């Protein structure tokens, strides 16, 4: 796969606080790359540095090997977004396409097609301030892809969308990637990221925490956990083999298991006397990994160390 964007050793400070500490990653054509992190981790700052809206103190950003930002080939949906309020939907879409040097006629066709696709048919003459928040988001999304960008940056594209619209966006983003668009996506919705992304970059306090393929990350970090509902003593559970850590709350016990266990054979280790009202075994989700990192529990680090 061809690399579209390459970020190398990016550093940025505001006043005396280092917001970005040595951030490096790549985005390939035709893949969806997620940039994740808790609020204030430095996601939007990274993106703004890529877009040339801010300038890094150190490090490089190259597009297809060139330092010049190919603005016309990039679509950008910022986190802080809005559109001019008192203008018509079609006018603003065409203006944004024109700024990207995209042919007006083609832009108009695409705009109408997308409005239809997103359930906004017949709204092209409506002014932006008459649209609901969700509709506004859809128009902003259309605006970011109307010029057929080769590289698309989506900063929190799903925030404030209802599940139906989320699904619509998800499908559209997948289609774009399938057509060869390089996509950099930042989001808090872990379930969506987990479903959609090919690779991810997890950032916390301006530093890289995890960077790799989604499947590898899951493989490496997402160990199994066993959740049992029932009245049980903590000691009983801690004594079981291959248990890294036990969390107990009310009548629920969660056992975080070491890597590489055989689920079926591990289950045989459960003593007969324990009280099981419900039992489930599943992998730690990206959501849990995320919360774990954001709250500095460092479960993963411990896990990774024990695994090593």
């Amino acid at each position, binding site marked *: 796969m061809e690399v579209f964007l390459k970020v190398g050793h990016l550093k940025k400070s505001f006043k005396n606080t280092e917001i970005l500490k040595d951030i490096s990653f790549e985005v390939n054509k035709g893949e969806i790359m997620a940039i994740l992190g808790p609020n204030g981790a430095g996601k939007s700052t990274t993106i*703004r540095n890529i*877009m*040339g*809206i801010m300038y890094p103190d150190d490090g490089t950003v190259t597009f297809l090997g060139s330092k010049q930002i190919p*603005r*016309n080939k*990039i*679509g*950008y*949906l*910022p986190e*802080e*977004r*809005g*559109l*001019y*309020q*008192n*203008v*018509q939907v079609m*006018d603003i879409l065409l*203006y*944004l396409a*024109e*700024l*990207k040097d995209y042919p007006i006629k083609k832009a108009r066709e695409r705009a109408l097609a997308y409005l239809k696709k997103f359930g906004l048919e017949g709204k092209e003459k409506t002014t932006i301030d008459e649209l609901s928040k969700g509709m506004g988001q859809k128009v*902003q999304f259309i*605006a*970011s892809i109307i010029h057929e960008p080769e590289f698309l940056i989506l900063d929190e594209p799903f925030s404030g969308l209802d599940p139906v619209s989320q699904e619509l966006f998800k499908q559209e983003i997948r289609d774009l990637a399938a057509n060869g668009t390089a996509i950099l996506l930042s989001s808090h919705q872990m379930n969506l990221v987990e479903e959609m992304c090919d690779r991810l970059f997890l950032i916390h306090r301006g530093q890289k925490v995890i960077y790799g393929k989604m499947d590898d990350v899951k493989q490496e970090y997402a160990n199994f956990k066993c959740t049992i509902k029932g009245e049980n003593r903590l000691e009983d559970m801690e004594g079981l083999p291959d248990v890294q850590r036990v969390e107990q709350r009310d009548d629920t016990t969660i056992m975080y298991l070491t890597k590489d266990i055989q689920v079926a054979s591990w289950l045989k280790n459960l003593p007969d006397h324990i009280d099981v009202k419900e039992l489930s075994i599943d992998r730690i989700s990206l959501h849990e990994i995320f919360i774990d990192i954001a709250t500095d529990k460092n479960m993963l680090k411990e896990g990774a160390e024990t695994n090593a």
Partner: protein
Amino acid sequence: MRNSLKVAKWEMKRNLKNKSFMIGIFLTPVLFIGFMLIGSLFGGSEGEEAVTRVLVNDQLGVLDTLNETAEVLDLNIALEATDKSAAVMSEEIEGMENTAYVMLDDSALESGVFPVYTSDDVNSYFMNQLQALTTPLKTLQLQQLGLTEEETAAISQGLIFEEAAVSESAGEGEQEGTFSNEDTLKRIVPGAFGGIILLSIVFSGMYIFQSASQEKKDKVAEIMLSSLTPGELMQGKIIGYFGLGMVQLVVFLAFGIPFALWNLDIPLFEYLLVPELLLYIAIAVLGYFLYAALFVGVGATMADMSSAGNFQGLVMMLPFLPFLFIGPVVSDPSGLTAQIGSYVPFTAPGVLLLRLSMLDTWPWVEIIISLVILVISIWIFMKLAGKIFKTGILMYGKNATPQEIWKWIRA
């Protein structure tokens, strides 16, 4: 530059499609002319005051001469002969309207006092106007004394003290102002035209204010900056609103020129289309760019119009600074205040326009210094505005403090 023009086109289009802007653009001249009409309605009632009928019992045979004089001086008086005596008339006249009665006989001529009986509601200027008719009577008096015509002329010429001009240009300015009305108009017309250009583009320049802070309010800046550089966005706005100012100007003139042609009895185009006009327009345009740079920069520091801080409010008042100079400049277009006014960047365009339309001979050195100051300050302010705009436009939801702005400028 190409991108700037796209932004300019967009800003123009979006405002011209905006109802409130269009209403504003037409309402301003309509209101302006409306107020002028109201003014002239009040003014007109004075000019067309009813003619006062003066009944003259002429025993001196001067009625024709008096009539001539009244006509020459364009007095609001109609003289009529009557042979009724003062005793009869003094009673009769009380029942009449806007009428006066004068007895012209030898005894009055000798004493030099002609008693005038007037009705109650006589025109307030009547007595002043009537005084003008004393000249032919005076001549008659002198002739009766047996003086020759030259002697009569010499005496009736009268004596006055006249102020000799010490400061040449000041004297000239005033003399021009008072004596040759036509010449003054010749200079004022292009100057006023320049003033209208300045005013209408400065007004539309104030929309830049709104536009720049609206950019923040709508959070659209970041989307724009993914396609443009902040510099292009700023330039585009400045050019775009310049265009809108021009549209405003055209609308203004479309109302104003017919109105002026109809209301003023002057060859307007002949006065307007002179080489001086080019300089006036240049000054107005320079003034626009100065204010535009100021507004676009300050606008980018404000979250929205209603939350403008003291600092921002102060800057908004700057275009009105030249009004402070109007009084001193009009009374002395070459004075110190006028000169200072032409050297301070924010007052220079207004004061220069005012001075140049009043002065007979132009102080070229001062004009050039003033223009150089203007151009340099435009350059500086554009640079500063660019720096402020770049950072300010992305600062959503709050006003920048002067300290922060200072930091951006130094960055």
